[in-house]
């Protein structure tokens, strides 16, 4: 038996379908716009993905800068490791959210964006969502750095699992009395509600196609991967494009592409080309690992595992549960949007959602990717896992990685657990007799 170790060659360029290439172009265009915002006299607002008020910011001609997306981009481009270390040099401890440290480290290194150009200082920090308490601390740190104004838009947590009228009126009141007046003052642009209505109308249109695409995973084989591929699909709608014609066009294009795949009976596109036979359909809870994204994804598609639904693709909105931005109720609709995002949901709601996904998408089981540096996502995940297992009778598994800190990704450990999990599904399917 001879072990043959091949020469270390650069992995081939990842194969992307047309929509992925288009999404990449959109993201790049946005970064270019951001880099040159000040030259054009545009104001910049930094805000978070979950519950972002992109349509509202557009009403004030502001460009949207999302620190989490910067961290993700830096993770995918293998820059985040250095940034995290830089932040640690500045005194941030090891276990803090690595999105935060990647962001802080990037600033310390000149705030160069993923396109190689410096990112502009924000004119305002709009904290629109508090489901993750780290967000508050994060903006506190940024406020010290940029010495700019911070707007706090308080979103009540859905502790009882439902949205009440009071919650909405509380949020609308904040929008009217605090958020909008401050944005008017900072931007120098007068608020026009009809302009907002128009953007919301466009949002809803893109949201329809977005949901259609995510739900296409109900097909067998699934034409998409709703976790790894899903990362590409959520980019425009969760980021700076909601409310724009670009987003409408993108989702129309994506939908046509997926329709084509269904017609041909094809599975998802992976970085190595079309996926082979679909052997396992999974529901995944928790964010992915970005520093080893391709390697991580490969561990799935090499085994024929496709993710048919994921909770992570709902952090910027749970549209598949029926919510749409509504031009007829503009401010109320913004409030409902924030209330509905995944991380604002309590544990029983999250469990219900995962259970429904397993049933609706006919999944083989649940996989949890627990994030070392994210207590917000990770707290309670084991309990959720046990409950979903109990309700569905489907096997579940637990892996541990990190968002953008490459030091927290142990490939051998993750692969070992994943392979064990896939074999466990196989064994369960076969039952006692054919457990081989």
């Amino acid at each position: 038996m001879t072990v043959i170790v091949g020469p270390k060659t650069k992995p081939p360029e990842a194969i992307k379908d047309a929509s992925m290439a288009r999404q990449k172009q959109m993201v790049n265009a946005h970064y270019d716009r951001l880099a040159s915002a000040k030259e054009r006299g545009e104001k910049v607002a930094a805000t978070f993905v979950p519950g972002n008020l992109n349509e509202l910011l557009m009403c004030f001609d502001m460009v949207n800068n999302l620190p989490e997306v910067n961290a993700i981009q830096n993770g995918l481009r293998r820059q985040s490791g250095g940034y995290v270390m830089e932040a640690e040099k500045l005194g941030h401890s090891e276990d803090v959210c690595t999105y935060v440290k990647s962001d802080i480290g990037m600033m310390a290194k000149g705030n160069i964006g993923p396109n190689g150009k410096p990112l502009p200082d924000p004119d305002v920090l709009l904290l629109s969502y508090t489901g993750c308490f780290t967000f508050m601390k994060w903006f506190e740190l940024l406020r010290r750095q940029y010495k700019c104004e911070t707007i706090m838009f308080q979103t009540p947590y859905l502790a009882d699992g439902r949205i009440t009228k009071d919650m909405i009126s509380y949020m609308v009141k904040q929008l009217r009395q605090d958020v909008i007046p401050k944005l008017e003052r900072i931007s120098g642009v007068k608020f026009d509600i009809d302009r907002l209505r128009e953007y919301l109308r466009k949002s809803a249109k893109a949201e329809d196609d977005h949901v259609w695409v995510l739900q296409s995973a109900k097909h067998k084989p699934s034409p998409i991967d709703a976790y790894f591929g899903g990362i590409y699909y959520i980019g425009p709608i969760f980021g700076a494009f909601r409310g724009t014609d670009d987003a409408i066009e993108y989702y129309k294009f994506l939908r046509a592409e997926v329709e084509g795949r269904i017609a041909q009976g094809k599975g998802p596109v992976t970085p190595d080309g079309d996926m082979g036979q679909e052997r396992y359909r999974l529901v995944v809870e928790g964010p992915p690992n970005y520093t080893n994204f391709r390697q991580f994804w490969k561990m799935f598609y090499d085994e024929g595992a496709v993710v048919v639904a994921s909770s992570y693709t709902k952090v910027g909105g749970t549209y598949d549960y029926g919510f749409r931005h509504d031009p007829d109720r503009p401010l109320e609709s913004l409030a409902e949007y924030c209330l509905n995002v995944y991380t604002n949901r309590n544990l029983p709601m999250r469990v219900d959602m995962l259970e429904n996904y397993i049933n609706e998408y006919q999944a083989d089981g649940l996989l949890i990717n627990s994030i070392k540096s994210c207590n917000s996502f990770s707290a309670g995940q084991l309990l959720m896992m046990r409950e979903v297992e109990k309700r569905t009778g489907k096997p579940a598994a637990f892996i541990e990685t990190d968002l953008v800190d490459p030091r927290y990704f142990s490939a051998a450990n993750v692969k070992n657990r994943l392979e064990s999990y896939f074999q466990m599904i196989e064994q369960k399917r076969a039952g006692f007799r054919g457990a081989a």
Partner: protein
Amino acid sequence: MRTFVGIDLGSTTTKAVLMDDNKEVIGRGITNSRSNYATAARVASEEARIDARFTLFRRALHVGEAGHEHSAEFLAALERNFRLIQFLEQLDDLEETCHRQLEADRFKSIAGPLQEALHVIFARLRQEAASLYAPGAKRKSDFFRDIAGSRFHVHAEAVAREMGIALDMVLNAYDKSIIEVENRPPGGDLSDKFRRAVARMLAADSHAADGEGDFAAMIESALGIELEETYLVGTGYGRVTLPFSKEHIRSEILCHGLGAHMMYPGTRTVLDIGGQDTKGIQIDGHGIVENFQMNDRCAAGCGRYLGYIADEMNMGLHELGPLAMQSNRPARINSTCTVFAGAELRDRLSLGEKREDILAGLHRAIILRAISIISRSGGVTDQFTFTGGVAKNEAAVRELRKLIQENYGEVTININPDSIYTGALGASEFARRAVAA
């Protein structure tokens, strides 16, 4: 006869199990994993095949049956002679390899004296070899590297002194050779070795063949049974480096689950502390894995950690448990990180605390981490089975029993003497089922 092979390529040791059609284990083999898993797999399976031959001999000689009292003795003598032959063969290989090393430039200036020294050392090694495999002789390890290594050092020291040459040059020749020899699986025909062992034995003791029948003929007929390797399944961290196709690979989590089920059908919770990781596994009544958890990026608390502690204390790995057992007042080491616990070890040693108390505390720290992993996998259900190399460590077992009792009350705790083979056993059963299905 058809056999089914399970190989568990662990980070420290590689284990192989040979199973027959009736689900009976007929052979077990173990070797250190070294840096070369392919060789380790070959050596372990060769060892399992040797062990299987002894099983067949036992059956042929009716060992254990009334009226066959001498056959056990005969077999024991055969095994000692067989091992001696194996040892001498590897010793020849080692000597040849050492001499080849002397051709290198660095030895040029003293090649002559070194050659002579090696001759003397190997002559002494050969001379004492028989005593190493004499009846009742105790060996600290069965691995060639360990036995030959320790004896070579003893003789080299003496010979270098007697001849007035530099000891480090002699040891250097050995160091350069041992890995090469170790990575060369034993060659030669197995049956022939058994025949030579029988002949050697009869030559040494003509009464050995007296007994319930013609033992030599019975051995010969057992050697006639062909051991057909019907299907093989590999597991463990080294599995991916071997040219096994996907169908021949199972994760060690599944293998340990199934292996534990085969040893104890009533078991529902399995703890495996291996060299690199610790796993808490829940299985159903058929040995199918329901759930599992394992240590994440920090491998503290695994078997390898005990190795570090042993090095730190300048002790052998197998001495740790017995020493810790002598403690009546285990130190409270609260760190869940066993590497931090290592820092405590140094601190407490410097404060004059007893080594056995500190060691007992460290064993507790390791088991505390294991308990956390078990809890996350779903807790302990009756029966509970402890597998993996650390299950041989009595101090770890003592702490485990205590903590399981404290946390889960009275549950049956199974620890099999062959617990180290649990993963390989599960793998061999997967191999059997692959053909049976």
